């Protein structure tokens, strides 16, 4: 069963000067229950916008976003609020996501206060305590302010808050990119363990390909708000077919000497997301482009069972 379905989702933003930014353009994808799907791309590729569309923090201009079979646009504000209990979110900035004026206990129990108002304070306290232990924090930490914690501890508090309503989906918006390497490994292991224990589905937004390779089942590659390639992690990262994915991968060093990523540098700068291109968004930078590429939108084509690529020459 697919937990999330996006069908032809578009989302634009209007800048104060009136120009329109095409943040997410005609994106369709599904996330199956119990899997980890990574959304990768450079900054400005629309990754975070996609996350916020799934969270219901943003509404699509057109297209359909469905969670657990329910289309978000058909729900009332109150139903969307209730739905929020089913989705947790962990942000990139460990400290900025926590209210500096609330103690850790109050931060973690807040979703309970919102969604289970009849729960007694003592019951809430016990659940917070149990969850803090589950994310490897001393329950005593509930009485402290987030400023007094390390970045790794703050991120664990964020994770505890995301999990307290026992959500089915957790959106991880670059949750490890501002952490030290050693802490990063611990947090990733924690995500793995929590997924096992709770049967979670992760939507993992990242630009760190090494982490994605280790962590996710499926990969979706975004470029200028469009999906250019998607499929199982092994296929997309080991045999990338889209020239953009190949360039993205060649930009990192592989630890596996048997894998020599094709070196296909892109030329030029990424075009502005304020310009809506008719054909392939990579036209002008692509090493293998043909005149055909600029003519019409390029649909995702299935190449190898579940490996899909939006490239005429792949």
């Amino acid at each position, binding site marked *: 069963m697919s937990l999330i379905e996006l069908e032809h989702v578009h989302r634009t933003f209007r800048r104060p000067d009136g120009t329109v930014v095409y943040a997410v353009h005609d994106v369709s994808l599904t996330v199956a229950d119990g899997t980890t799907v990574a959304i990768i791309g450079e900054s400005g590729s629309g990754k975070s916008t996609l996350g916020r569309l799934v*969270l219901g*923090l943003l509404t699509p201009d057109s297209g359909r976003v469905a969670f657990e079979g329910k289309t978000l646009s058909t729900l009332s504000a109150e139903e*969307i*609020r*209730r*739905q*929020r*209990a089913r*989705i947790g*979110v962990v*942000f990139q*900035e460990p400290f*900025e*996501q*926590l*209210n*500096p*004026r*609330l103690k850790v206990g109050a931060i973690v129990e*807040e*979703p309970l206060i*919102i*969604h289970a108002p009849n729960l007694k304070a003592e019951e809430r306290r016990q659940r917070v305590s149990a969850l803090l232990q589950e994310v490897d924090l001393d329950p005593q930490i509930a009485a*402290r*302010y987030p*400023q*007094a914690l390390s970045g790794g501890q703050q991120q664990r508090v*964020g994770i505890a*808050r995301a999990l307290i*309503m026992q959500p089915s989906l957790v959106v991880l918006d670059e949750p490890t990119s501002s952490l030290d390497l050693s802490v990063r490994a611990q947090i990733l292991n924690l995500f793995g363990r929590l997924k096992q224990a709770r049967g979670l589905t992760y939507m993992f937004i990242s630009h760190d390909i090494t982490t994605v390779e280790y962590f996710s089942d499926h990969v979706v590659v975004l470029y200028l708000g469009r999906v250019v390639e998607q499929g199982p992690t092994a296929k997309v990262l080991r045999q990338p077919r889209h020239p953009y994915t190949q360039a993205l991968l060649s930009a990192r060093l592989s630890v596996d000497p048997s894998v020599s990523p094709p070196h296909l540098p892109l030329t030029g700068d990424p075009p502005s997301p304020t310009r809506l291109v008719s054909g392939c968004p990579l036209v002008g930078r692509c090493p293998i482009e043909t005149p055909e590429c600029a003519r019409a939108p390029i649909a995702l084509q299935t190449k190898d069972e579940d490996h899909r690529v939006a490239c005429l020459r792949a």
Partner: protein
Amino acid sequence: MTAAESSPGTLRAHFGLWFGLTVITAMLVAAVFAPLPYDPIKPNADAVLQAPSAAYWMGTDSIGFDVFSRVIEAARRDLPLAFGGAIISAVIGVPLGLATTLKGRASEIIMRGLDAFQAFPLLVLAIAIVTLTGNRLEMVIFAIVLIETPRMMRLIRSEGLAIRESRFIEAAEAMGARPRRILFVHLLPNVTGIILAQTSIAAANSLTVVAALSFLGIGVSPPDPSWGVMIQAGARLMTSGQWWVSLFPGVAVFLAVMSLNLIADDLDVIFERTSR
């Protein structure tokens, strides 16, 4: 940033805050409890323009009023007006200011309307209101509230809009918090320092206006003391050497206004430090 830095121990390092609080508290305690050595509205014709002495600590004025008794008595009138005006402005301005941080065109229109109020000088408005409402100094509170409430709203709005962009607000929205909860649980505690500091500044402004009004003779009837009236009464005597008549009420106004500003400055620093 550790928890220890926000503990009261380090607050002692904030001299201005403690000095200010001590002065203001002493003035309020004196205004409420101090026994007055002489009746502040009954002059003694036998003791006119006496220099400060053991009998008359701050001397007497040209009518024979004891300056010390009247400085204290004036505090009973001036301080409640200033504090009352500032506190009412905060009580009205804070919730309205928070409300205008919610998205919507209405809040933009409200703020533009409030700009008109702010362009108006407080003293001029105060003179108009007090003289038009039967020349009673108490009415200055309306002028204070009319000017200081929009200031408070504007400040809360600008701070609040910045905080609204924070990740923790987005996290609260993502968990399904209602707007009221976001305003009062997430925004309000993060603007507490600014509210306290601005209230203190508003009280200082108000005190200056109260003193200025009574100095101009607006809203006061003769025997009742007010710091401004007393300064006015002694102003002409300065040149003839009777400095004490206006000096002591002047010092009272100066100390109170300075203390309130010192409190505001240190509150800004303290709250800024504990939240970032």
